[in-house]
């Protein structure tokens, strides 16, 4: 290639070997295909926080499914009053409650109730809220107005307050009823988020393009609108799992969540408060278990939000 003999004074032409020109608008076939979901996965994968949170959550799930694997002491048998508020000893690493029960096994066996309520409430809220929100946002009109106002009514009642009222009149208090009651007051939040996201997706160009291609309205909702609107719901759902676990503990603490016969962190914290000055450890362990669980889900929620954040997903 001749170098700069094209240049004249006042007219600079770059050396062709320095400025090679590529074909117009080619695709780099060497790079692997990336969907926005695989992008999200890639961005989560490199975060240590994601792995820490996931590992913790896996352990928590394992504990709640098979508590027997982690504790050989049955939580209620072998409670000996002489051991009341006793310190740690061999085989009982966390010490004893006021009733002389092993704290470690109570913490282990209490996991199930907390996690069940958290997962179940999240599942119910997400399913119901997302479906209602999606339909309201997509079809609009009278249905939307009705759902939105109805949701506002529930929104106006603080979840815990509503749950206290409802739980106190329920004859049967189990993990399922607690989850149901929490879901009844919490779904409008998800519904609102879903509705907003659906409205934004509904007016996008690709929806108009699909309409013009002859895709039916319901198909567009299922195939285009929901997949594009679901990300913020996933983020909120992951975060709210922690708050549901806290809510269960709160209700149990107040004595209107799970009955005392059911092992739960909330109940244990409630009982420990009487001996908080003499034996703070009795309070500490169930509270720590609760905090770690909630923190794990919040951490996961945080990583998921960063990965699915619309700004991070923007044109790259």
């Amino acid at each position, binding site marked *: 290639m001749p170098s700069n003999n094209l240049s004249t004074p006042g*007219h600079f032409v770059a050396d062709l070997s320095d400025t090679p*020109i590529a074909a117009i608008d080619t695709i780099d076939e060497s790079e692997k295909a990336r969907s926005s979901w695989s992008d999200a996965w890639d961005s989560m994968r490199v975060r240590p926080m994601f792995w820490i949170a996931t590992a913790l959550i896996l352990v928590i799930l394992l504990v709640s499914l098979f508590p027997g694997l982690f504790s050989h002491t049955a939580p209620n048998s072998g409670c000996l009053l002489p051991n009341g508020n006793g310190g740690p000893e061999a085989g009982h690493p966390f010490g004893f409650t006021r009733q002389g029960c092993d704290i470690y096994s109570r913490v282990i066996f209490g996991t199930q109730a907390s996690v069940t309520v958290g997962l179940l409430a999240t599942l119910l809220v997400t399913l119901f809220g997302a479906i209602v929100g999606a339909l309201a946002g997509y079809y609009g009109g009278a249905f939307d107005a009705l759902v939105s106002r109805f949701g506002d009514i529930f929104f106006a009642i603080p979840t815990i307050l509503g749950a206290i009222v409802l739980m106190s009149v329920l004859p049967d208090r189990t993990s399922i009823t607690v989850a149901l009651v929490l879901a009844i007051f919490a779904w409008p939040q998800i519904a609102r988020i879903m509705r907003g996201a659906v409205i934004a997706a509904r007016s996008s160009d690709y929806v108009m393009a699909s309409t013009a291609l002859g895709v039916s309205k319901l198909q567009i909702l299922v195939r285009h609108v929901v997949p594009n609107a679901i990300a913020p719901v996933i983020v909120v759902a992951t975060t709210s799992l922690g708050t549901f676990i806290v809510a269960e503990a709160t209700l149990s603490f107040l004595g209107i969540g799970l009955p005392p016969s059911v092992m739960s962190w909330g109940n244990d914290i409630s009982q420990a408060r009487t001996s908080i000055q003499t034996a703070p450890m009795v309070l500490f362990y169930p509270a720590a278990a609760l905090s770690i669980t909630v923190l794990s889900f919040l951490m996961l929620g945080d990583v998921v939000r960063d990965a699915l954040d619309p700004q991070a997903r923007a044109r790259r």
Partner: protein
Amino acid sequence: MTKEQIMSIPTVADETSAPLLEIRDLQVGFKTQRGFVPAVKGVNITLGAGQTLAIVGESGSGKSTTAQAIINLLPGAGKVTGGQILFEGRDLTKISASEMEQVRGGQIGYVPQDPMSNLNPVWNIGFQVEEAIRANSNLTGKAARARTVEVLQEAGLADAADRLKQYPHQFSGGMRQRVLIGIGLSARPKLLIADEPTSALDVTVQRTILDHLATLTRDYGTSVLFITHDLGLAVERAEQLVVMYKGQVVEAGNAREILANPLHPYTQRLVAAAPSLASRRIQSARRPETTDHMAISDIGASDDTLIARADKREAGVHPDLITVDHLSKIYNIRQRGFGKTELRAVDDVSFSIAKGTTTALVGESGSGKSTVAKLVLQLETISSGSITFDGADVAALKGADLLAFRRRVQPVFQDPYGSLDPVYSVGNTIAEPLMAHKIGDKKSRQARVRELLDQVALPASTINRYPNELSGGQRQRIAVARALALKPDVIVLDEAVSALDVLVQGQILTLLTDLQAELGLTYLFITHDLAVVRLVADNVCVMQKGRIVETAPTDDVFDNPQDQYTQRLLEAIPGAHFAFAR
């Protein structure tokens, strides 16, 4: 002259001829997730006092980054990694942040690209201009206010005093850009950087704004650095030209000389692709006769026998496929309280499109051209008048008939970033119309998708990719492929190439022309860009404020425009009469 020689132009030899701005071997890079990416690689630019220089290039060429580096407005992750930016002999890359604040606005003014987003919507215009004046002078109180009015008047807002209390949303795009120019020039800077100052505006508005800017800068003796993608604008408004490509300067010198006689292959390519009034309709390289018939028999879209079709073609009798008759679309706009006003978006529009031809609908923003497209596509309901497609009244179509109509009339929209669902792979996107119309099984759809990708000149491996990995031009190809999937008769192209760089635009236009020849397609081509029209259209309808003011074959419209508005539009195209090298 080598690069080194250019760089060593003496700076202190002669006071008067010393350059105002001299960029030497500038390097700028961005920190990204995938490491450090260089954006500007050794750029040299020299701009004398009172001169006007334009940097042209495609998106991603580093032209805006170069301009932003001068006044240190690089976005967060950007950093100058080498070279010098000498402004009146002072290296701007070395000065402190507070010194830079003195330079910015005071000595170097800046006019940003988008007048819609560069004024703060919560403050009134007077406040925002006054803010700039206070920052760059020691005027306060009444004096500053008086200067504000003066600045706005100079920028071309005659009733400036009355408009100070108004907010940006009460101003049109052109007026907002005047305000931004006013702010940029308020402190009488020695250099004004105008980054695509009129790209978001209509051509007629662009013309008046640029004329005004030229007058002001000439009066004040301000040097101007234009950043633009528009070669016509560059040759019309600038004496000096710098062509950038992939972060490097490929050619620099006198604007007219370069565009009349480009020497670097990239510049040659760019100049060849620039649409201008001197352009001619793109002719397809593919042979229409044979392929046309094959394609038609393949589609089975026509009832005519091949011979009958051939006869018609020879006789030049194209049957009208779409007839638009006295079409109107009225929107009711809610007003304060319960009142309503009517907006006639489309007002008594009539035209027809012959089979196998391209009709362009041209107009500025608000002319109703996109509404016509939506009406033709039946995405909006018609207020009055009628649209007939292949003998059937489009408005009356329902159910299966509407589905059949959708199958035959396909759209390609303007924004290649918005019209493809980001969570769908390319394969699924193109296959969607086939699925919606329940055509074929999974395997035959896959085969058809590959065939379509080949038709739009994309590799088959694209099938697994997602829209976010593709460029604007590639996305638009996908949109064209999707539109072709059902073997339609008509494609409605709504500003389909407006968002693309000129080279990519040329590529897509050639592709469309080839496909038309090959498949006998009929196009309704909606655009604001008259120069593009000349490249693709057989007939043109010029729209203004919802009405068609002129309908004629393309060459007649360009060579002998009848309507005043058409004449004005043609006159406003930048560099319209400059003979680019071909």
